């Protein structure tokens, strides 16, 4: 891993170092941050007084990123309001997840965080009603191939995405947090037991489950292109826990069968962001990860590095590919994986030989 890849996490921890940067360092940093959707986040970490001291060049790019983010944030608030009303009208009880959840909870990571879509969860029994309500009020199901549509409905934890043609928003409607096909699950009752209402009356996960979901999302995803953002999300959420609360959280995750993922995430935080844990917590992490510690440094950390030609290495690319394969692997048992992989692979093979855009023209 090039040190500059890791440096991104250092920039987020101590943004004031940027006050000393030369123009060329700013140029590189701006490119890497922007490519990984972290530029507005970085901008949000400066005090107003510090921002004024930056060069016009830096301020201009940061300001553009923040303007764009503010527009999105505004849109999210508006969509949440509309969706909540729509769902309530249909007798559904939506829980707002991920980005929308952080915005509503005002978790520190919400500042500057770009969101490409809104994630909402309803109980499986409400799914059909929710889907119909969406389709009846202007939302359209995004076009996916028949094959993918079947995959979504049968094996996944979410329906194919919805798009609102006028507003351009994308919506993912979930009925649980993990694809059932992985064989891992959290009882719906538990999920809904761990929700809270915001002051405005919207439902989100409580802090423990926001963190848990974030960690699950990191480890059950295929796409690690922008995973560094997930690491920052995890850090900002975990920071809100006291050490005793953290111990409780680890215990809870072990009860739910996600102890390993959580301990990997906490260890990753230690490795990349220098977080320190009390002795008790460290011991718990050691025990849970016994024999697998090496994966943090060798596989997981490289996979969550920012992606950019300036910092990509063979190692980070391999790690991201491995996690990509793994991401698919855990989402499907072998008998599904092979036909799915076979279909996807044929296309991939043609694409790699003929060029990625062979199927589009």
């Amino acid at each position: 891993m090039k040190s500059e890849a890791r440096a991104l996490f250092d920039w987020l921890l101590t943004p004031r170092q940027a006050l000393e940067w030369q123009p060329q360092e700013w140029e590189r940093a701006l490119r890497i941050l922007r490519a990984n959707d972290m530029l507005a986040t970085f901008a949000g970490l400066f005090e107003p007084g510090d921002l004024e001291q930056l060069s016009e060049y830096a301020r201009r790019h940061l300001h553009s990123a923040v303007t764009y983010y503010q527009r999105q944030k505004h849109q999210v608030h508006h969509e949440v309001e509309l969706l909540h009303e729509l769902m309530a009208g249909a007798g559904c009880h939506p829980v707002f997840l991920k980005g929308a959840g952080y915005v509503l909870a005002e978790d520190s990571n919400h500042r500057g965080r770009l969101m490409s879509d809104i994630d909402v969860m309803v109980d499986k029994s409400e799914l059909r009603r929710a889907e119909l309500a969406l389709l009846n009020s202007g939302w359209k199901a995004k076009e996916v191939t028949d094959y993918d549509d079947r995959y979504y409905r049968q094996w996944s934890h979410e329906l194919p995405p919805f798009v609102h043609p006028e507003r351009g928003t994308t919506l993912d409607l979930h009925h649980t947090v993990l694809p059932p096909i992985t064989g891992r699950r959290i009882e719906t009752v538990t999920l809904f037991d761990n929700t809270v209402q915001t002051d405005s009356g919207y439902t989100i996960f409580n802090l423990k489950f926001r963190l848990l979901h974030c960690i699950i999302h990191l480890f059950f995803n295929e796409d690690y292109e922008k995973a560094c953002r997930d690491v920052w999300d995890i850090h900002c959420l975990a920071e809100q826990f006291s050490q005793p609360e953290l111990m409780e959280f680890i215990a809870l995750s072990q009860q739910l069968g996600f102890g390993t993922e959580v301990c990997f995430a906490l260890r990753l935080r230690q490795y990349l962001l220098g977080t320190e844990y009390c002795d008790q917590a460290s011991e718990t992490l050691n025990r849970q990860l016994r024999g697998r510690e090496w994966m943090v440094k060798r596989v997981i950390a490289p996979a969550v590095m920012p992606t950019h030609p300036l910092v990509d290495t063979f190692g980070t690319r391999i790690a991201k590919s491995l996690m990509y394969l793994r991401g698919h692997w855990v989402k499907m048992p072998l008998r599904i994986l092979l036909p799915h992989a076979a279909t996807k692979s044929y296309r991939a093979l043609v694409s790699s030989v003929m060029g990625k855009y062979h199927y589009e023209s």
Partner: protein
Amino acid sequence: MIIDTGHYRFRVSGAPEYCYSELSRMYGDSVNLSPEKPVDFQLDFTSTSWLRTLVRPQRVLNVDNQRIFNPIAKDKCLPSIEWGMNWCVASYDHTRLLIHSSVLVKNDKAIIFPAAQGSGKSTLATLLGLNGWHLYSDEMAIVDLNSATVSAVHRASSLKNQSIKVVHSQFPNAVFSRTTEGTQKGAIAHVQVHSRAEFDHFGPASVVAVACPKYVGGARTEILPLNQSQGFAQLVRNSFNYSTLGEQGFETLFKLVQGAEFFALRYSNVNEIGDFLETLV
């Protein structure tokens, strides 16, 4: 190679060799200007796949991690650099209001020509820019959010198909790039309208008029005044980032509209239009 266009500095890398000599001719002293200064955007060309490299070589244009266009044949890379520069600005600059239009300035007064493709705005702007007007941009009005003035960028003007011949016949000594045939938009060439030295004298200008041009072969010159509501709507429709800027964009456009007259133009004779535009500045 670095291209300094004033507000925006670009670095182009990995392009086929011929592109660099073409860009040098187009951009003159703007090339590699102040190399110690940072760039705003970098355009990187890479190849698509190992087989393609052998069979029909294609390049992909990336800005950081993003492939911004479908792959391009080697001989069509030059226009994609110009489009790439536009893409970067329109996607990432939200410190100014950007309107899809040409901008001509005379006597420190600006006229904006918002229009979709095929309206002839670039041809009109180029012909007038080579003939006494200052072409601030053939593609994008760059509007200051506070003052609603427009400022210039040092860019080559782009011409398509017939326009290339038309401009060349009237201004055979102008600096043209090679013509790239067979792009999605037909044949494309670029023209240097102003040198860097001239450009350096172009300061911010207040907008006195907004004219929506429509070139129709053989048509009589028709000038239809529009009211400010219609004009405001046209500007909104043609903005790249009005929606992102939200209320700030609204306030800026209102300020711009306050000081401007609006017209729709239908023409085939550029000189007559030129005469009319002179009366506005």
